[in-house]
């Protein structure tokens, strides 16, 4: 058995897949926050930082976990200042006495074509749980579309799936509009920078170029650039899809009056230093998840304290 196979087998043995996304029992009349997306919102590998930080900042939990929705997801985690926690703080400050529940349907490797399924699950859960309101939904999607092999998901197909998703969500009838924060794709091609490729990981000191590019094989289309022209071609793929997300958010807001969709481009404008990466040199670590939450929270215009 080769080393990559040993490591991947270990990962599979020790990983677990959260079959239940529930973070509490539904109570009639309670508020619901929903999370949709891919491995970033699922908190994949966020428990294993590339560069372990000082223990005073929090002990590294040396577990191999494929999903960290309950603890480390920027949207739903309880061990980071996630949007779920920030929303809870806001509601308490506003004197809201209805309890807030969270459901995270984000799944690693999901693309826009998988979003309608996540939306159906969300709607089904909302109706079964007899919640009074779906108060807030985060959607971070598109990275796997941009990374797709042999080529990125076509823009018209992404648009169609997104509109289908929002149509499903609009089936929820409630007094307030449903507030949806649609977050654009991060600067994935920047992860191919030589400074990151050369970084040593805690995995036997192997470099990121080996762990990420050969062992895991993450997103070679966008990360495997070697020339300036290739880098810009990869960035074009991301930028085009972010434009599509932005325009579709506006289109869906106009088409579905009970949805209020705000697009955030901020992850695209953020640098990704290796300190924010997980051991696979691709996903965000706990610190990365915190940074995402902090930065993106500023783009939602609804839950603002004085």
């Amino acid at each position, binding site marked *: 058995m080769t080393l990559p196979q040993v490591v991947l087998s270990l990962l599979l043995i020790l990983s677990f897949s959260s079959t239940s996304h529930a973070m509490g029992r539904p109570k009639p009349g309670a508020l619901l926050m929903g999370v949709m997306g891919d491995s970033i919102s699922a908190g994949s590998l966020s428990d294993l930082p590339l560069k372990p930080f000082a223990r005073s900042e929090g002990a590294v939990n040396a577990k191999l976990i494929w999903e960290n929705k309950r603890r480390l997801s920027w949207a739903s985690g309880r061990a980071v200042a996630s949007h779920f926690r920030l929303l809870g703080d806001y509601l308490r400050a506003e004197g809201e006495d209805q309890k807030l529940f969270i459901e995270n349907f984000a799944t690693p490797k999901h693309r826009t074509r998988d979003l309608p399924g996540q939306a159906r699950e969300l709607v089904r859960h909302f109706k079964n749980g007899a919640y009074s309101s779906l108060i807030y939904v985060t959607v971070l999607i598109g990275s796997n579309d941009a990374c797709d092999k042999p080529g990125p998901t076509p823009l018209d197909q992404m648009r169609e799936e997104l509109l289908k998703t929002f149509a499903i969500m609009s089936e929820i009838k409630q007094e307030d509009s449903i507030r949806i924060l649609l977050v654009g794709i991060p*600067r994935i091609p*920047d992860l191919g*920078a*030589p*400074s990151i490729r050369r970084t040593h990981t805690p995995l036997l000191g192997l470099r990121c170029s080996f762990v990420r590019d050969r062992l895991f094989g993450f997103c070679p289309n966008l990360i495997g650039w070697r020339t*300036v022209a290739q*880098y*810009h071609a990869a*960035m*074009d793929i991301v*930028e085009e899809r*972010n*434009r599509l997300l*932005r325009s579709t958010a506006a289109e869906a807001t106009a088409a579905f009056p009970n949805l209020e969709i705000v*697009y*955030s*481009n*901020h992850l*695209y*404008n*953020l*640098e990704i230093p290796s300190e924010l990466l997980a051991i696979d040199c691709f996903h965000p670590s706990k610190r990365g998840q915190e940074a995402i939450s902090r930065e993106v929270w*500023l*783009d939602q*215009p*609804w839950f*603002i*304290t*004085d």
Partner: protein
Amino acid sequence: MFTPAAFIFVFLGNFAAGTAFGAICDGIFLRQLGPTSVSADQILSYKIQVVNEGACNLEGVQVTDYLPRRTLYREGQPTPSQVPSDRPAPRDHLPVHQVQWMGVHLPPRGGSAVFEVKVLVLSPGKRTITDTACLEHPSSVRICNTIDFWVND
């Protein structure tokens, strides 16, 4: 340079929503003004306008312009607090290309400021470039607006 016909100033994108800064600080707006298109290897000039129609006296506001990719920063008015490196190629470290003005003061009920940015648009043409400008107040919310420019051949 732009021909007069091409240099039609338009309000690009929406006037970014001003629901920020809490209930008592509503009415903060940001928008970019500039041409709809530009030619490759020419200067693109656009303005970022911020307005405070609300009742809050906003001090220490930060305005950031995330410059379009494959452009070179040339000039900012007033002089920005922070400007990007002049080297366009991705190196070991890939800095996000941004210009920043710190300590902007926006008095209540109509306080406004305008920031002008000039960048050289690099080849190739026949593509869309994107600019995002954000207004941020310490410990408060951020308002951003993203616009596109078409690059002619």
